């Protein structure tokens, strides 16, 4: 086909009959007006949709859209005014039901009207920017019914009345409420907010203000919180059942403010039932409830946390300064652990493991543990007790748990070097007396300390273990090379490297002949294989097993300290010895000697010696005899034990002094480092605060 032909080919619009009748619009409109009446009167079945649709279509087509639209507005408005009157006439509770029924009717009618006027909705209305039919219907309902003077306030007060009734425990028609509220929401969010939500929130605030006042006067803290929680849940449930979901956060804010935020301090500090009481009595449920409620209000959790912290610090302070409790270090540490366990439990069960609470707990412990400067010593004593006997028969897992708890306390210590000193002393005693329950446990703790503080901290401790092992090997070697000695007394030597072990004054005493000969043989053996070393005997730290036969022939094996052995062996050659004679023969220092004699002459069940006079103390003029009447149920009798005790005052001073000495070089080294960093411009001093350093870029 050529282009010319294409251009000539046109399709013309379908032409309608031209309207001649001048009254056309009137006639058509009255048909439609009649139809609207019938629709409102539930008489639609006699109407033909097609006819009505066609008429409306024709009106719009022939430019009578304006008449149609304004006619619609007038007709609907008139009907709604009638409806309004019938709703006003309803009595009491029937008011809402009538409103609901008429609303449903109106919606149905509106939809039918919209359907038949669809063409106008789609063409005339967009062109003239008028309100579409459906929206128009809602607006007219709003203006003529909901906002009519006789209905508006009555509606609101009925709704609020029903809510109030429900709050006081009555059952109300929730379905009806839901429909009415939904109607308000359909009319627009501003209608819902202005005609219901705002007043609802105001009234609720007053209600809860009253409630909270009433409860706080007569309830204890736990009960009050239960009630508050109930009300909160009730409001949330109310929203899900018949209010706009966006109202939930608004109404919960009201309840939170009136019932919780406004009374927060009074609740927390309530006598006999407040937070502190709950903590003391482990009231997990109440505490959990408080946590959940308070987290909803500003500063709620920080309030709980602050009260808990100051309470903890108070308790902790009492614990560490109570003289009674300080008498038994093991008990003291156990109390600390128990307190920590208690609060760990509270935080996990009631405060949902909140990290900020965990931090508050840690900082409180750190605060009061360091109030007492004997804490490091006591913790070491606690460990000592466990490793000597406390862990006997305990499973491996439980051992780990206990050691981890100890480590946790260790971390709180500020003076960790003091702990190290004591730990070394106690460990030395345990190793040398062979009194440790489990080697694995010992080593496990060393590993934990190393992980926490680094190699430096534990290198000496590990050295001690190594010495023990090496000594075993040395003894094997010694006896292998001296087979002739196997019949005589058995010697067990621990060779201690000076740097690793706690420093001891080196005091020797006069050993009995048999023993000293053996010791010399060992010395030459050792120095033969290790040139350039020096050995000195630490006679204050050894033990001996000796067999004794008493007056009536009873035989016993006595486990004694080296000093005690020296004293006892003297009685092989003498029946009676005075204090002075013993002192001279053994060369043992006076205080040690007195303690040694006391343990053998004055202690029931261990009195292998007899003393004249029979006083409790050792006097310089006393005389000693073997106690031939000595009896014991056991064959083996233990007399000398070298137990770790908490230090006496002078000992404590000495240890502390040594710690201070050791700190000096560390501090000097740190100062030098800082000075060099300042010189090289990595740090500078703060201009205002002499104690502050700043990093430079």
């Amino acid at each position, binding site marked *: 086909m050529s282009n010319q032909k294409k251009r000539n080919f046109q399709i013309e619009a379908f032409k309608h009959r031209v309207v001649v009748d001048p009254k056309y619009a009137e006639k058509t409109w009255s048909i439609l007006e009649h139809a609207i009446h019938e629709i409102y009167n539930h008489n639609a079945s006699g109407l033909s*949709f*097609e006819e009505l649709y066609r008429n409306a279509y024709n009106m719009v087509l022939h430019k009578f859209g304006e008449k149609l639209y304004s006619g619609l507005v007038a007709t609907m408005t008139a009907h709604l005014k009638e409806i309004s009157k019938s709703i006003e006439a309803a009595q009491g509770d029937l008011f809402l039901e009538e409103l609901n029924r008429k609303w449903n009717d109106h919606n149905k009618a509106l939809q039918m009207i919209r359907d038949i006027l669809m063409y106008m909705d789609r063409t005339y209305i967009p062109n003239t920017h008028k309100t579409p039919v459906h929206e128009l219907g809602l607006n007219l309902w709003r203006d003529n019914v909901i906002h009519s003077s006789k209905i508006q306030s009555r509606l609101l007060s009925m709704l609020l009345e029903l809510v109030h009734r429900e709050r006081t425990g009555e059952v109300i028609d929730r379905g009806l409420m839901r429909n009415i509220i939904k109607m308000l929401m359909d009319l627009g969010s501003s209608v819902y907010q202005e005609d219901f939500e705002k007043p609802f929130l105001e009234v609720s605030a007053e209600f809860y203000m009253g409630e909270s006042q009433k409860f706080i006067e007569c309830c204890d803290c736990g009960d009050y919180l239960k009630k508050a929680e109930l009300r909160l849940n009730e409001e949330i449930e109310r929203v899900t059942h018949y209010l706009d979901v966006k109202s939930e956060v608004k109404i919960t804010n009201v309840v939170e403010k009136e019932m919780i935020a406004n009374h927060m301090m009074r609740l927390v500090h309530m006598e006999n039932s407040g937070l502190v009481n709950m903590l003391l009595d482990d009231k997990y449920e109440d505490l959990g409830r408080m946590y959940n409620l308070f987290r909803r209000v500003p500063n709620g959790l920080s309030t709980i946390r602050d009260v808990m912290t100051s309470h903890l610090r108070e308790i902790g302070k009492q614990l560490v300064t109570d003289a009674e409790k300080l008498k038994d270090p093991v008990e003291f540490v156990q109390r600390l652990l128990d307190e920590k366990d208690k609060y760990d439990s509270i935080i996990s069960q009631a405060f949902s493991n909140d990290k900020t609470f965990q931090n508050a707990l840690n900082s409180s412990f750190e605060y009061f543990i360091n109030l007492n400067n004997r804490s490091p010593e006591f913790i070491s004593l606690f460990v000592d007790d466990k490793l000597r006997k406390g862990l006997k028969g305990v499973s491996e897992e439980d051992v780990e748990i206990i050691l981890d708890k100890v480590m946790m306390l260790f971390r709180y210590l500020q003076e960790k070097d003091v702990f190290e000193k004591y730990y070394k002393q106690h460990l030395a005693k345990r190793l040398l007396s062979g009194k440790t329950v489990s080697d694995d446990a010992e080593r496990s703790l060393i590993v934990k300390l190393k992980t926490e503080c680094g190699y430096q901290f534990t290198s000496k401790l590990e050295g001690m273990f190594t010495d023990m092992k090496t000594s075993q090997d040395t003894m094997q070697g010694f006896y292998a090379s001296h087979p002739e000695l196997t019949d005589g007394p058995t010697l067990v030597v621990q060779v201690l490297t000076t740097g690793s072990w706690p420093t001891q004054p080196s005091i020797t005493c006069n050993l009995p002949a048999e023993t000293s000969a053996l010791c010399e043989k060992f010395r030459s053996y050792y120095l033969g294989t290790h040139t350039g070393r020096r050995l000195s005997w630490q006679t204050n730290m050894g033990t001996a097993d000796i067999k004794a036969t008493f007056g009536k022939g009873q035989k016993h094996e006595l486990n004694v300290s080296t000093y005690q052995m020296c004293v006892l062996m003297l009685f092989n050659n003498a029946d009676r010895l005075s204090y002075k004679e013993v002192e001279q023969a053994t060369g043992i220092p006076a205080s040690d000697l007195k303690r040694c004699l006391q343990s053998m002459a004055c202690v029931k069940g261990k009195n292998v010696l007899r003393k004249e006079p029979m006083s409790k103390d050792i006097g310089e003029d006393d005389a000693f005899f073997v106690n031939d009447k000595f009896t014991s149920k056991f064959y083996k009798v233990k007399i000398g034990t070298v137990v770790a005790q908490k230090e006496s005052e002078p000992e404590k001073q000495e240890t502390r002094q040594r710690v201070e000495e050791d700190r000096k070089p560390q501090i000097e080294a740190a100062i030098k480092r800082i000075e060099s960093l300042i010189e090289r411009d990595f740090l500078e001093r703060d201009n205002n605060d002499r104690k502050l350093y700043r990093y430079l870029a």
Partner: protein
Amino acid sequence: MKRKDTVKLISADEMEFVIDKDAVMVSQTIRNLLTSPGGFAETKLGEVTFPEISAVILERICQYFYWALQYSR
């Protein structure tokens, strides 16, 4: 007697077309008519009269319905 899922369309010159409901729903207007609440006369009887549309046109319209339905599937 007509099957449940059909609708009768009647033209101006009284020709009757019995159409599947699915097909007739292609027209938005007829769809609104049939689903409008409140029971207009048409929904009761299941038939729609078009006093201004001739049979020829109406027939074409019905054909269009089926064509549209076929190609929308």
